[in-house]
């Protein structure tokens, strides 16, 4: 009998330990909406980014309170609210009353999903994504950091211009929300008296869907489903009637068009060059400086990542030369040797904390990239400070314009100087991070992060030192990881900060931060 007792005991232990391992891991930011700290009643007067007038997209005067038309819409809203399925009620919780946060999350997830570097062909060449045939391997887009920074800037600017217009009309027409007009309609979120025409949620749903569909064409159906769910939720939530939603959709679609027109002519389509062009850029650097970066993979990638991203249209920086740093120290120079020696020392004696910093900021392939990482910080900050939707859009628009500008400026420096990576200058050097397919100087992580931290410091001055510390840590992470020299990091941070200063200066013109 004794042996059976043992085995029963073992089974009991097993069952206990097994069940305690089960847990749900978070797949999104955990919040369900909040009371806005400020409704930003004057946001309709804020400076638009790509549009010239807050009435550039005309809206008709909404049906008046008490009109048969509005009463019918209210009755319809009431019915939708009372007959909502459990999925629809879940959608109301998911989208919240600041749904830009969710669309930003969707954008980061798609950036991650498409952040896959092309694998070599059997003959050792590398295929390139083709926007004209996006489903053919490698799928379009390859959402690398420059692509993601540009995608986020266009998305955020469309959202921001759309909400400035929405706010203008809200306070022009002053239509009360359905839960105010009809006491039987309940708001799913904390009531705040925000005027409902046009629906800010519908502006966000439509503009985000359209911009992201252009950026990730294979996700068209997924994005359409998301937008549909979001649009339905606005009425089920009791915060909009259908004419609010229709007006919001109109603005959203039009701002997306403006933004996508800009995107189609910003130079991105030429950023990934031919071999001939790539070689001429390389040779120019060789003649100018005497050194040249070469990809170290096997088989070798003969063209770096987007050599002409530095020529893509800037948002707020006047030109790349305005923030281009001086040349890096020549390989073999004392300053170079000092940095190289430091890299070898880190590699040989890396502390656990340094390794953690390198990995925390790695944001490499199959991640949302450094621009995404800073968007995630912004999201948490915006919700923590309970910003209104339009104030939220403002943060993301300026953040992502600054990040994109820093990326463009950084890429200009990368291919202007064409500086070799540590694994090239120090044969046999091994790293804990993968070395990316573009030159070293300046560090992209440093430039993106330096820019992002300055914008965040402007909008959230109480946490300014935290953001700047993070930027420095992000810059150092690449040195700990063995893929950048100290001078790449220093110049990148500086370049990022200088790039962001133009965006911050533009934001300051509104005088509201």
């Amino acid at each position: 009998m004794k042996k059976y007792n043992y085995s029963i005991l073992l089974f009991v232990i097993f069952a206990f330990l097994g069940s305690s391992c089960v847990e749900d891991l978070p797949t999104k930011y955990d919040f369900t909406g909040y009371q806005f700290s400020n409704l930003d009643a004057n946001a309709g007067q804020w400076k638009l980014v790509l549009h010239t007038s807050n009435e550039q997209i005309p809206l008709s005067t909404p049906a008046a309170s008490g009109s048969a038309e509005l009463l019918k819409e209210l009755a319809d809203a009431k019915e939708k609210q009372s007959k909502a399925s459990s999925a629809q009620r879940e959608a109301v919780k998911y989208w919240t009353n600041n749904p830009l946060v969710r669309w930003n999350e969707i954008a980061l997830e798609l950036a991650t999903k498409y952040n896959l570097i092309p694998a070599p062909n059997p003959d050792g060449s590398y295929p390139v994504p083709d926007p004209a045939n996006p489903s053919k391997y490698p799928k379009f887009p390859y959402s690398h950091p420059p692509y993601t920074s540009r995608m986020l800037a266009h998305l955020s600017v469309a959202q921001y211009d759309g909400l400035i217009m929405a706010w203008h009309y809200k306070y022009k027409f002053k239509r009360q929300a359905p839960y105010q007009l009809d006491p039987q309609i309940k708001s799913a979120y904390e009531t705040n008296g925000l005027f409902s025409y046009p629906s800010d949620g519908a502006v966000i749903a439509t503009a985000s869907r359209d911009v992201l569909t252009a950026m990730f064409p294979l996700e068209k159906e997924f994005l359409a489903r998301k937008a549909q769910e979001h649009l339905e939720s606005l009425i089920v939530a009791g915060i909009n009637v259908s004419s609010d939603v229709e007006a919001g959709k109109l603005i959203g679609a039009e701002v997306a068009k403006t933004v996508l027109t800009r995107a189609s002519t910003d130079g991105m389509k030429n950023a990934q060059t031919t071999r001939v062009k790539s070689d001429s850029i390389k040779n120019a650097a060789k003649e100018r400086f005497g050194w040249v970066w070469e990809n170290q993979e096997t088989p070798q990638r003969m063209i770096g990542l987007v050599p002409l991203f530095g020529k893509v249209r800037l948002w707020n920086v006047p030109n790349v030369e305005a923030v281009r740093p001086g040349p890096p120290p020549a390989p073999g120079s004392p300053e170079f040797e000092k940095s190289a020696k430091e890299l070898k020392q880190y590699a040989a004696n890396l502390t656990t904390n340094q390794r953690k910093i390198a990995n925390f900021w790695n944001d490499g392939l199959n991640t949302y990239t450094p621009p995404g990482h800073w968007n995630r910080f912004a999201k948490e900050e915006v919700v923590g400070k309970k910003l209104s939707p339009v104030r939220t859009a403002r943060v993301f628009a300026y953040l992502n314009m600054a990040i994109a500008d820093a990326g463009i400026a950084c890429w200009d420096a990368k291919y202007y100087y064409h500086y070799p990576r540590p694994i090239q200058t120090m044969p046999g050097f091994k790293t804990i991070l993968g070395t990316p397919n573009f030159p070293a100087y300046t560090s992209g992580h440093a430039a993106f992060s330096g820019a992002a931290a300055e914008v965040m410091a402007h909008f959230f001055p109480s946490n300014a030192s935290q953001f700047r510390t993070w930027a420095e840590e992000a810059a150092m992470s690449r040195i700990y990881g063995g893929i950048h020299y100290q001078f790449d990091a220093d110049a990148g941070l500086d370049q990022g900060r200088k790039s962001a200063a133009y965006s911050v200066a533009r934001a300051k013109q509104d005088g509201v931060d």
Partner: protein
Amino acid sequence: MGFHFHVFQTTLAMKKYFRFLGLLCASLGIFTLAHAQTPLDGLMMPKGEICIALQYEQGTWDRYWEGSTIRVNQNIGTFTKQMGMPMLVGGITDKINVILSLPYVKTAATGGQLTGVQGIQDLGLSVKAVLLEKSIGKGKLTGFSNLSFSTPASNYLADYMPFSLGFGANELGIRAIVKYELDMGPYFRASYAYLNRGTAQAERDYYYSNGSFYTATMDVPDAFQGQLTLGSWLFNHKLRVEASLTTIRSASGDDIRTYCMPLPTNKVDFDRVEGFAQYYFKTNGGFGLIATYQQVISGRNMGQFSGYGLGITYQFKAL
């Protein structure tokens, strides 16, 4: 009457068998190079006897399965995983054994610039019990159960695959083993296990696993492990040889994304053929030698390992 006779005979034979087995160091077969040791053989150490083993294993691959597609990646070239493992097996009673193991692992690749790592992997603790013994025909049927637990024994980073020392999670395994051995020496063994794995901690708080995960915690999939073995005792029980087919199937998990590094969340499946030999210099304890060979024949999200192992064992009566 016949039944009683058989029981009586079994008991006698069993005593003889255990005395005889007391001369042999119960070894533990082949490690899975991906994971800590899982004891699944069909031998028992008698009460008071201890076996100390030191095993070395090396496995290499130059191709791996990305999902179910095999890929060559010259930026890894040939990948090598070496493992040195001290192990201790002790007979608590004739029917209950405990097994302790603590592997030291070293990884390296011939291609690319990513650095290999080395260090202590997982502490393994296992208890094996005889639940059934019965003479059938000219042989004996034995049933065992085994409960195993392993836990990372250093702060190695699991989220650095394929170089990481292990998957970085606790594993609790429960296993059933049946063996039928002819008195002449040949035997057949089958085992089946459920391996419950916990979570690994990454050093980043966002990752993609068929969608976004905003956490540093990675869920390592549970797995089912099966093994079929044909073996035999030779040369008056001084030599034991075995051929096995081992199969691992993860219960969940995602695939390695195109040209990306593997993750601890991956669904790792494989089938492997193995050869094993154990030789005892004396029939009254002391030193023994182990040699193993393995070849992965199919897989998913896993390197196509082939490898060998060598070990030395020493057995003595402690009590």
